[in-house]
């Protein structure tokens, strides 16, 4: 078993919200998250909107400063890095955003967009044009796209450019934040295939964030399920789809319509009542307690931490600890 490339321990990101004169409330977007990502694997993060998965992706790369917790890269706490080491980390860890329309600078050509990163970091790429062209080919674009502007491309092509830009830095780790959610299904299919293939070719480690369970399962080897700022279950993709332990994971998976009418109409739906709590005023105890069909008195009192149940299965639930 390989060692973890990235380890997160008790990571928190709170956004302050002013109440009145002196009182401050916090939106607890990420509220104590711990997990490992092993070298060479794609780790999926699923959850509904507002669960904090996007904030998590950005905080891990220090695009947003964390409020508390530790992030380890190859065993070193990156929050204690000096400027030099931080710059190096930023080169090795890249991100591909969800919205292809706003993540590319409309005033730069494709060539500029892709070469900008390596230039800033002083990376020797040999002949810049050749370098960028070879990257474009890798993501399925052509040489003649080199000096075009983003608005001349479709959504799918823009995402390919965004991926090429990330690859230009020769990264070890890429966070994919809902990269295909804004695209049509057929375009999505080709981008997903491409990411998988590139991951193998460049031996990349990745974090794949999405609300689409089927896509995450296809892309990831292990999946973490988030609920209102915490990870409630982590497991192997296949195993997780066969059996879910945490009651929220069960509800989530049973609610997803499967593109197969015989299967989806026969499966039992666990309809969960109510709605997720506000991330500002979280109730005491387990945050799923008000909606959980298995609620016990202790669930109201104390919040469970992630516990290792099996090899490769972690659950944060008093039913299993």
């Amino acid at each position, binding site marked *: 078993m390989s060692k973890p490339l990235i380890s997160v321990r008790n990571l928190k990101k709170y956004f302050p919200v002013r109440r009145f*004169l*002196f009182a401050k409330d916090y939106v607890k977007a990420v509220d104590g998250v711990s997990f490992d990502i092993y070298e060479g694997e794609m780790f999926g993060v699923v959850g509904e909107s507002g669960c904090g998965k996007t904030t998590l992706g950005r905080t891990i790369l220090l695009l947003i400063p964390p409020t508390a917790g530790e992030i380890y890269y190859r065993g070193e706490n990156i929050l204690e890095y000096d400027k030099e080491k931080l710059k190096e980390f930023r080169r090795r860890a890249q991100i591909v955003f969800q919205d292809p329309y706003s993540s590319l600078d409309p005033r730069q050509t494709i060539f500029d967009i892709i070469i900008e990163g390596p230039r800033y970091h002083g990376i020797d790429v040999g002949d810049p044009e050749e370098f960028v062209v070879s990257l474009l080919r890798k993501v399925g674009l052509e040489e003649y796209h080199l000096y075009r502007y983003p608005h001349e491309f479709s959504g799918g092509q823009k995402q390919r450019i965004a991926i090429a830009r990330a690859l230009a830095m020769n990264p070890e780790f890429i966070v994919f934040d809902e990269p295909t959610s804004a695209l049509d299904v057929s375009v999505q299919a080709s981008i997903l295939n491409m990411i998988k293939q590139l991951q193998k070719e460049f031996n990349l480690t990745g974090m794949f964030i999405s609300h689409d369970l089927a896509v995450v399962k296809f892309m990831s080897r292990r999946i973490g399920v988030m609920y209102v700022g915490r990870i409630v279950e982590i497991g192997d993709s296949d195993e997780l789809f066969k059996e879910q332990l945490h009651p929220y994971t069960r509800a989530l998976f049973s609610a997803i319509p499967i593109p197969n009418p015989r299967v989806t109409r026969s499966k039992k739906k666990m309809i969960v009542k109510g709605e997720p709590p506000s991330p500002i005023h979280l109730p005491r105890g387990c945050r799923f307690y008000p909606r959980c*069909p298995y609620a016990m*008195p202790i669930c*109201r009192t104390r919040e469970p931490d992630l516990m290792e149940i099996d090899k490769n299965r972690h659950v944060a639930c*008093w*039913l299993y600890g």
Partner: protein
Amino acid sequence: MLAIWVRGMERRIFDILPKKTFGIALIFSSVLFIFSTLLYLFTRTPNVVAIIVVSLITYTNTLTALFVWSEKLRRNSLPYIVLLIILVAVSVGMLVFEIYYLLARKFVAEIVEPGYATLGLLILLILGYFANQIVEKITPELYWRVGRFLGEDYINVVYVSAFAMIGPAIAFFGVTSLDPYMGFLTLLIAFMPIPGKIRNIRMYLRREEIAKTMEETIRKWLLSIPAIKDVPEIKVYSLGPLAFAEFRVMVSELIRDRLEVLGDSIRVPIVDMIGNLVGIHAYLSTTRDTQVLVGIPAEDSKVSSRLAGKCVVVRVDLSKLEVIGTERVELSDLKEEDEILRSLISKRLDVLCLREVDKKIKNYLDGWFIIPMQIESDTVDAAQKELIENLRKLIE
């Protein structure tokens, strides 16, 4: 914070609001009071009278909390009400006197050292802010509402000081004619928390009513847990805006090893339900003199190998270890695992007999203080005998 005494078959679970919170609140109030009095004597600015009054008022909440927390004092609350009346009366008196003084002298300026007055008020403002922040932060997490409550009067100090500063500040720059009017306004503003305190006194007079409602809420919650057989005593002391709860619950001897966990599980939701609780004294008594319900999943006369919808419920007299009665029960017609488990709770079972104990079900039963009992028998009759034996072993 949890303090547990053991005496025989009884556990006491105390919640104690640490003396630190009260101590610091008292110190802050005293500092504010003394400092503002000295400031007034030094500068003779009417605005500062407002601050003296407000700092006096900050004592009221702290004193209330102290009284409620003390075992002796909460039972006889006459001293509390007297103190409260004195504080409010003195405050109102000071305000009225100072307003009369201003009116009588027809708002003629008579300010000494407006510069120092401004500075002093600024210091009071900062002190008030820190008092509020610190008191809120050192209150234990479980009682954060009490911390807020204790700290809220200090916010009044901040607001009134800020407003009060305007008068002397203008005077400091030479415009002395405006200050007395500002002083008048400040005194009026200082009146603002006082009706609230008078309301507290009235609430005290209604304390029985308020306490009864809270007692009902707590009792309902306690009885919703099947393991709790009875709530023989419950008393809530309501003192002005704060409250203290004392109660005794009876549980069967079967769970005598888990009283701490039970205590933990019941006290936290109570504090959430009744936000102005300063503390809880809970007594958990175990007894053998009660009936327990034992569930045996069974189809006809054969014991089911797994937990399913049909069940035989055996009522057992725990003191005599005798079966009093049996009943056939349909646990749930939907056959979903979570529905079946929830119906165990609604049927108020104390024990569930199983041929094989699945870890998840065991955790659920433990979580609800139901005892999972592993049995070997495959007929209901044999199971009944086996369970009596097991119960005997458990109690001995």
